[in-house]
Structure formats: structure tokens, C-alpha cells
């Protein structure tokens, strides 16, 4: 019996992992409906995690592109709340910003390359029988460069038209759509803005909506015309404006420009301490950052909720595996009598649990990517598959299976073969 003794030195009845995987799939296949339903929990969990995080990334990317389209190298100086005897009057209560301020910034701020002031008001615009409510912007020649938006047909107004407060207007696409039939070329047509007649000299390119603000729903007229005929003439300080766009050579100069602009305005407005500023300076990069922070937070929250369904799925697996071990007590007894070690039984049941969750996870990944693709197509945002989410999904489902399988598999391995063989 030399053979026998030699083998007893290493009495490991090693079963290959492939073999155990095969056993697990056989066992699951013999109970298809139950296995499928058990997988469902993981499928739902993983597909939600993947689709939500991917959709979040897609929306983030699309919004980022839109906001970048507005120019992240632009500062916006807004008329802020004026102080009256130390009491804040509320933002916009008095327009403290003037065209003169804009001109001063253009002349005195060394880093500012483009400065454009604007005055805005919501008003009625009429063409023939049709009318629409829109925002009229009185602005200067730098506006297209500052806002990175240019006439698609026709032209913007000229220095001469600005100097003479000419009755010319450039309309944006939404206004064109609302006022003019598709077969009418708006160039040269006359529209009424707050009762006054303006000649359309250009149509801006479409820029798309930014949340509630539709940049294509606007008409542009010379700032001088606006202040002379609509609003904004301030006897004391010249022409009031709602805001000033200031653009530097590139994004990295924004902080410098901000500093220069703030100081120029404080000097001009006799402001002693920054707390009393009657203006606010913002830039798109800040807005972008704020937006991204909010969106990431939201995405993380929803992914967290989706993750809960993964936990529930894991509990489902654990449950079914516990039932399965009880049902297959006799099988476990037979296997042990035939020479399966406790380790082999443990591995077999643990593998079953992992196979359920990994198959569920893979199906979930595919469905999640499918949902993302469908949403991206339907709602027109870039189709991005979050690689991190896919990796996390696969990793998560594997660990869910492992954790869910531990207790059932240990129960199976611990079964006494004699008792197990006698069970029904």
C-alpha cells in the first residue's frame, strides 16, 4: 500500500475551479426560473447604477459643452444691490452700473481685451399680425465677440448706427421663428419693439437653451437706441446698463481681470470696503463648477439609492442559497460520502452564489449601457459609458455574490454527512 501512504501525505481532493464552475452552472440551470428571478435583483441594481452614473456623466458633458460655448473666459459684471444708509436695497433695485463704467474698464483694465455693456428688458415685439414676448438687449459692437455669438445671416450693427441710435435690430432664431413665416427672409423687414419701428439687419446663429434661459429668444438693438427710446437714461450718470461682459486673452487671466475690474469700479463708485460693492462679478467657469458639483452630488445620491437595490439583490441571493442548501441536504450528504471535502462543498455553493451575481451583473451592465444609449439618443446628450461604473458594477456584483454566499456555503460545508444522507 505504498501508493496509499504516499497520497495520504497530501490528502487534498482538489477539484479544478472549472469543474466547480460547471457544477454551479448545472445546478442553476436545473432551476432556471428561480435562478433567473434571483438574478433579477442584481440585474436591476447594476443596470441602475451604470445607467444613472453614465447618464449623469453624459448630461454633465453636454452642459459643460454648452456653458463652454458661452465662453468660460468671460467675466460678467452685474449691477448689484446699492447701499442706502447701510441698508441693502436688493439686487437690481437701482441700476448702478453705467456705460461709462464699461468704457472705463475697457480703457483702464490692462488685461481686458473685450468689454461689452448691455441693458435688457422684456418687451413685446411685433411683425405684421404676429407678436411675441422676448428680451430686448441694448448693447454695443463688442457684444458678439464677448458672447461668442455672431450673425448667421445679415450683420451686426455698426459704430455709426450705435453713435446715431439708429433704428436697426438683429434678431435671434427663436424670435425669427415666432414672428416670420419660414418663407420670409427677415433681413430688411421692419418690426416694432415697444411701439418703435426697427429694421432687421441680421439674424444670430442658434446657441441653444441654458436651462430656463433661451439665448435664442432675444433681439439686439444699439445701446443708445435702447436708452433713448425704451429705458436706461439716467440723468445723473449717463446710460445705465444691467451688466458688462469682460473678456481677457484666456481663462487664466480671469482672476487678474476680476481684480482690476473690481478696483476700477470701486474707485468710480466711491466704495470704501468690498462689503459695500454695488456690483457682482461672476464668470461661467464658476457657474460650471457649481453646476458640476450639484450634478455630481445628485448623481452620487441616485447611484446610492440604486446601490440599495443591489444590497436587496444580495439578500435575495443569500435567501435562495439558504433554501437551496436545505433542499439539497441529501445531495450534500451524497457528495461527502463520495469523497467531497468540506472545502469542496463550500466552494461549490459559494461559486453558485457568485455565478448568479456575476451573470446578473453582466446582464445588468448590458442593460445599463442600453438604457444609457437610449436616453442619450432620445434626449440628445453625448453617449458616455462610465468605465468606472462598469468596473464598479462587475466588482460589486462579484462581491455581493461572495458575501451573500458565505453563510449558506458554510452551512452546507458543516453538514454532517450521516445526517445529510438520512434527510428527505
Amino acid at each position, binding site marked *: 500500500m505504498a501508493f496509499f501512504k504516499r497520497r495520504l501525505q497530501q490528502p*487534498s481532493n482538489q477539484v479544478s475551479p472549472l469543474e466547480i464552475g460547471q457544477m454551479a452552472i448545472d445546478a442553476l440551470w436545473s432551476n432556471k426560473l428561480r435562478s433567473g428571478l434571483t438574478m433579477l435583483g442584481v440585474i436591476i441594481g447594476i443596470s441602475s447604477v451604470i445607467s444613472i452614473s453614465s447618464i449623469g456623466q453624459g448630461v454633465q458633458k453636454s452642459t459643460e459643452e454648452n456653458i463652454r460655448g458661452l465662453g468660460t473666459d468671460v467675466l460678467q459684471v452685474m449691477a448689484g444691490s446699492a447701499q442706502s444708509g447701510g441698508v441693502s436695497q436688493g439686487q437690481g433695485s437701482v441700476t448702478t452700473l453705467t456705460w461709462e463704467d464699461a468704457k472705463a474698464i475697457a480703457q483702464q483694465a490692462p488685461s481686458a481685451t473685450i468689454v461689452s455693456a448691455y441693458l435688457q428688458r422684456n418687451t413685446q415685439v411685433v411683425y405684421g399680425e404676429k407678436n411675441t414676448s422676448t428680451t430686448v438687449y441694448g448693447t454695443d459692437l463688442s457684444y458678439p465677440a464677448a458672447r461668442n455669438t455672431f450673425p448667421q445671416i445679415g450683420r451686426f450693427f455698426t459704430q455709426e448706427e450705435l453713435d446715431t441710435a439708429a433704428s436697426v435690430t438683429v434678431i435671434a432664431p427663436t424670435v425669427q421663428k415666432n414672428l416670420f413665416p419660414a418663407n420670409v427672409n427677415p433681413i430688411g423687414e421692419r418690426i416694432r419693439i415697444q411701439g418703435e419701428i426697427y429694421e432687421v439687419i441680421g439674424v444670430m446663429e442658434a446657441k441653444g437653451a441654458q436651462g430656463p434661459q433661451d439665448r435664442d429668444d432675444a433681439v439686439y438693438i444699439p445701446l443708445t437706441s435702447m436708452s433713448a427710446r425704451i429705458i436706461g437714461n439716467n440723468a445723473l450718470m449717463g446710460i445705465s446698463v444691467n451688466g458688462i461682459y469682460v473678456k481677457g486673452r484666456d481663462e487664466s487671466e480671469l482672476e487678474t481681470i476680476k481684480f482690476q475690474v473690481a478696483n476700477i469700479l470701486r474707485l468710480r463708485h466711491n466704495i470704501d470696503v468690498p462689503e459695500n460693492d454695488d456690483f457682482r462679478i461672476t464668470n461661467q467657469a464658476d457657474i460650471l463648477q457649481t453646476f458640476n458639483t450639484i450634478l455630481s452630488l445628485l448623481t452620487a445620491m441616485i447611484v446610492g439609492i440604486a446601490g440599495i437595490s443591489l444590497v436587496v439583490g444580495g439578500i435575495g441571493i443569500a435567501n435562495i442559497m439558504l433554501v437551496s442548501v436545505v433542499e439539497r441536504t441529501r445531495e450534500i450528504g451524497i457528495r461527502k460520502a463520495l469523497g467531497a471535502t468540506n472545502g469542496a462543498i463550500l466552494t461549490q455553493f459559494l461559486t453558485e452564489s457568485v455565478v448568479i451575481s456575476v451573470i446578473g451583473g453582466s446582464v445588468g451592465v448590458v442593460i445599463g449601457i442600453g438604457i444609457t444609449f437610449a436616453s442619450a439618443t432620445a434626449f440628445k446628450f453625448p453617449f458616455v459609458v462610465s468605465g468606472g461604473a462598469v468596473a464598479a458594477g462587475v466588482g460589486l456584483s462579484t462581491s455581493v455574490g461572495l458575501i451573500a454566499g458565505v453563510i449558506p456555503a458554510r452551512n452546507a460545508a458543516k453538514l454532517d454527512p450521516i445526517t445529510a444522507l438520512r434527510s428527505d
Partner: protein
Amino acid sequence: MITLENITKSYHLSETEVPILKGIDLEIAAGEYVSIMGSSGSGKSTLMNIIGCLDRPSNGVYRLESRDLTTLDNDELAYIRNRRIGFVFQQFNLLSRATALENVMLPMIYAGVPKAERRSRAEAALVKVGLGDRLSNRPSQLSGGQQQRVAIARALVNEPALLLADEPTGALDTQTSQDVMDLFNSLNQQDITIVIITHEPDIAAQTHRKIVLQDGLVVDA
């Protein structure tokens, strides 16, 4: 081949200790064809579990093929069950969702036999018990006698030193019982050591040696 020296086994039931085996001394030589008889409660199932390495004695020494098994751990006992002992049960104990061939291949999975060899050896074992045409039938598609022959093929497939049968004919009618006993007889003639646990005298009568257990002791060997 089997040596039992003063084997005792007792179970703890709450506070009291219930002795089942009270000191068994037994010697079974290689190639023997033995039956262990006894009424229910005599301890014959417990003795079978100990011989089959499914259970450990409370005291005493059990040697199989000259090796003392009393000190082995669970994995080593699993190894012995897998390589040296073939089990045949009253209730056949086949895996219901597996075919006859897959059932016979099962012990070889745990022995680490390569797949192709597993298949050919399992086929050969099934042919040997007269079921060469039933390879892909599931247990539910086989008669009781056929199922028991699958179980015997499974018990033999790892070429064990000992075939241990626990009431192998208990669930079969007289004719199929006789077929199974004939199979055991022919296997013994091929030098396989067979131990049958039974309470039926006419089954025991067909073996070459009767060991009678009563109240946890051997009364006739």
C-alpha cells in the same frame, strides 16, 4: 484489511451518555464477502458509519489497510471515502438531475481524474453492471434495480479496497434483490472485499461470513 480493536461509540443525549457500540473487535480480511446482521438498535448502522469513515469511534482503533484512521482529520477521511471505500445505500442516493453516467463520474471529479478518463471509466463501470445502454438516463427513468446498479457502478469506479453496502436490497423486490446479490457475488469473485449491512437472514445467507451484532457487541462472527 479491516481491523477494529475495542471500538466504542456513544452519543450524548442532553445529560446522559448513550452507548451504541460497547467494544467491537473485528477482523475482515481482503477479498472477504461479509454480512453484518443485527436488529434495529443493535448498532450496525453506527458500525457501518465508522467503517465507512463517515463517523469516528469514541474510543478504540480502526485500521484500514494497516493504516490507523482514528487520528485522521475530516479532509483525510474524505480522501479515504473517495479512494478506498465504495458506498451502496438502501435508497440508492443518486443525484436526481444527473444522468447515470454523470452519477458514476461524480466520485472521480473529487479524485481529480481528467474528464476524458472519467467518462471512459464510468462507461466501463456501467457496462460491468449491465447498464451499458442506459448511460444518459436519469434516475427517474430507471427502475429500482437499475438505479441500485448505477449506485454500485459509482461505488466501484474509483477502484476501492472495500465495497460497503447498507441494506442494498431493502428497497427492492425479491427478484431484483436477487439480481443485485448475484452482482455482488460476481464482484466478490473478482476479489473485491464486500461488507453488507442487513437485517434479512436470506441476504446474509448468501455471504460467506455472518457477523451478528446485538446491543452494541459482536455476538457471532
